[in-house]
């Protein structure tokens, strides 16, 4: 029991929560934006991998870190465009197209990586983002090391969640996105072009996913390896449901999952030898499934999610 309290009281745990949450926040926001317009984007896992690679590669070749993030966003957007062409223009199955994008983007990422980076014993590294000190807050006792020793992209991700929440609920374009996800025919009848809205939402969402991936190579670690996304994309897809398609809840969900994950890592060291460590690896997923089951029943799915829209048809 004391061990548990020790874990919770350590600033390191909370700092880890924010760090682990960042790619999840970005990926979930991206998936959410796309789904709000009616398009499921299962390309996320591959897009994050590609973003991780291309952002890293840019920095490795001399770009600065922010340019690296921007390039990861552009890379994500390209795959978002591909997914839009397949699902919005051609009206193909969103599941199939998304899985196709994932397979393609992750293999392509590895291919480009191998092509551009010589094979060496230890993977090449870059100089990642450094923690920033906002207004000297990091010197606060406990709170400082717990919450104010993050790198800039983490704060950006949190701000983006708030911005997206505002965008979706308070702006004309947010309303147009929601209407398109609920009933594209109704959107069209109000003079909105549902195709354009869906393209925009999928591409912007994919850019966020790319940035989420790049966080892994430019901030959390400093090198790229092909399996590093490790299913985070799928977690994001589940978090969207958990969040009932609301950005502010997505932020909360990502933090909650990250908390489980950071907690189990520390629990492992305390209880090592007593329980096989694989049990701990399962904990965040089990708890997420439980939380998902509890939350998803109340969720309001965008009514036109996964339904292709075709003009001039009924």
């Amino acid at each position, binding site marked *: 029991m004391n061990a548990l309290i020790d874990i919770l009281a350590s600033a390191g745990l909370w700092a880890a929560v924010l760090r682990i949450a960042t790619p999840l926040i970005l990926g979930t926001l991206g998936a959410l934006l796309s789904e709000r317009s009616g398009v499921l984007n299962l390309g996320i896992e591959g897009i994050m991998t590609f973003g991780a690679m291309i952002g890293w590669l840019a920095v490795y070749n001399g770009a600065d870190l922010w340019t690296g993030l921007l390039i990861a966003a552009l890379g994500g957007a390209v795959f978002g465009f591909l997914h839009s062409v397949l699902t919005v223009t051609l009206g193909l199955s969103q599941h199939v197209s998304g899985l196709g994008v994932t397979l393609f983007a992750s293999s392509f990422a590895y291919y480009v990586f191998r092509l551009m980076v010589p094979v060496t014993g230890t993977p090449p590294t870059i100089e990642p983002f450094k923690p920033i000190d906002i207004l000297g807050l990091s010197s606060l006792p406990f709170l400082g090391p717990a919450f104010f020793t993050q790198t800039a992209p983490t704060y950006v991700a949190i701000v983006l969640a708030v911005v997206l929440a505002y965008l979706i609920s308070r*702006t004309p374009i947010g309303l147009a996105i*929601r*209407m398109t996800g609920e009933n594209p025919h*109704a959107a069209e*009848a*109000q003079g909105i072009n549902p195709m354009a809205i869906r393209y925009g939402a999928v591409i912007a969402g994919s850019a966020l996913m790319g940035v989420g991936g790049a966080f892994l190579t430019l901030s959390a670690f400093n090198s790229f390896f092909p399996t590093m996304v490790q299913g985070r994309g799928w977690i994001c897809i589940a978090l969207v449901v958990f969040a009932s398609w609301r950005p502010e809840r997505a932020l909360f969900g990502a933090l909650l999952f990250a908390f489980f994950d950071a907690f189990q890592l520390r629990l492992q060291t305390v209880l090592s030898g007593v329980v096989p460590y694989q049990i701990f690896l399962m904990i965040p997923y089990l708890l997420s499934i439980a939380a998902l089951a509890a939350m998803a029943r109340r969720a309001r799915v965008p009514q036109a999610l996964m339904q292709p829209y075709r003009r001039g048809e*009924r």
Partner: protein
Amino acid sequence: MTGPVLELDRISKQFGDNLANHDISLNLAKGEIVALLGENGAGKTTLMSILFGHYMPDSGKVTVMGRELPPGKPRAAIRAGVGMVHQHFSLAPNLTVLENVMTGTESLWLPASNAAAGRKKLLEISERFGLKVDPDARLGDLSVGEQQRVEILKALYNDARILVLDEPTAVLTRIEADKLFSTLKDMARQGLSLIFISHKLDEVMATADRIVVLRGGKLVAERKREETSKAELAELMVGRAVKRPVRDASTPGEVVLEAIGVTVRTGGVDRLKSVDFRLRAGEVLGIIGVSGNGQATLAQLLSGTAQRSAGSLVLFGEETADLTVADAVTSGIGRIPEDRNREGVIGEMTIWENAILERLSRFSRLGLVDRKAGVAFAARIIQAFDVRGGSPTSRVRLLSGGNMQKLILGRNLIEPPRILLAAQPARGLDEGAVAAVHQRILEARRAGTAILLISEDLDEVMALADRIQAIVGGRLSPSLDAEDADARSLGLMMAGEWEEREVVDAV
């Protein structure tokens, strides 16, 4: 006066080899109400969709207030002052009324939506035209009548000068419909021009200044209201005189279905309260009442999608445990659901697939679907029930509303079932089709099918039913023989008068 506010000039539109509109010209003056009449599939919705820019015409042009509209651009039509109330509402159930109305009305790149101004404008309009709504209600929680009000408000909010309504009364109760038409007349007096589509000749004669009839995609007649009659219009629509069939006398057989004190409770509310009825072979039992009084639950009970919480249900002489959907199908209960798009057909699937859905076992061979037999079966339905606008392999979604209904009817009646549950079977059908549907129902009755007819249309019930019960607030009145029924006694029944009489009797 000035020229017409709207001119449709030689519009043509073809879907595949289906000529939906052929060389149609039509105009509309300020403050005028024009009714557009025509059989199911005559091309009414298509013509209006071209006007509004949903569809691109193959040829012809649309001119509003002297300016030609670019084809295929709803935005341009809205800007020019055209508003449309769609046959299948185009609203988003998860959004609020205000959000539904405001979508697309502001420039998309504004950093904030001005909801306060939107609410003010919406309330002003709803005040001015007497269309009351709660701007913050979730749309999906509203009744159909209220949803339609939102559709109209949406058009008015965009400053529509020309309002098109596609079968606005198909889903409304009589009272709601009367109210709607007085609103429409009021709008015309305020200078709006209106086009409405309807199959109900009474409303057309009561409301329209001018009537335009389409048949097979062509404009076949145009009449001033004073110069025509219901009979003439019916004949113009169908191309021949139509008469609704009336039931002949017959003696019913044994009781096939009996409900004794059945209560159905869903969501914590008693939707049906201790209802009794019995249904005999070869007999039509009509259930009348204003919609929303438990009809939907009654239909669900008999199709197996709602379970009773008290009372008993005796089917073919045997007390049933819970009646499941599978039981309903295997024991031969045919169903014509009220909401055909949601419960009747699967739009994305083909006509033949929809036709055999309930009979899969019959149409499978060695575990595979026997496509050939299915297509042949669908072809038989299309033939026998005059389903127009599609072949067995075309998607159901492409059929016009009325033809979808004929398909559902055909699927149920091509081999008369033992029990038929018909909820609003003639809703949205043209005069000719109504007569055909009634004919089919009466044929099934003759063949020994027991029919439960749920309808708001008193004429329909009087023509078809042997006995009539009214449903009010989840209760069923005692049954009245059709011979003893007249409009007055039925009206009293629908108002729940029998209950008071019972009380009086008891005293």
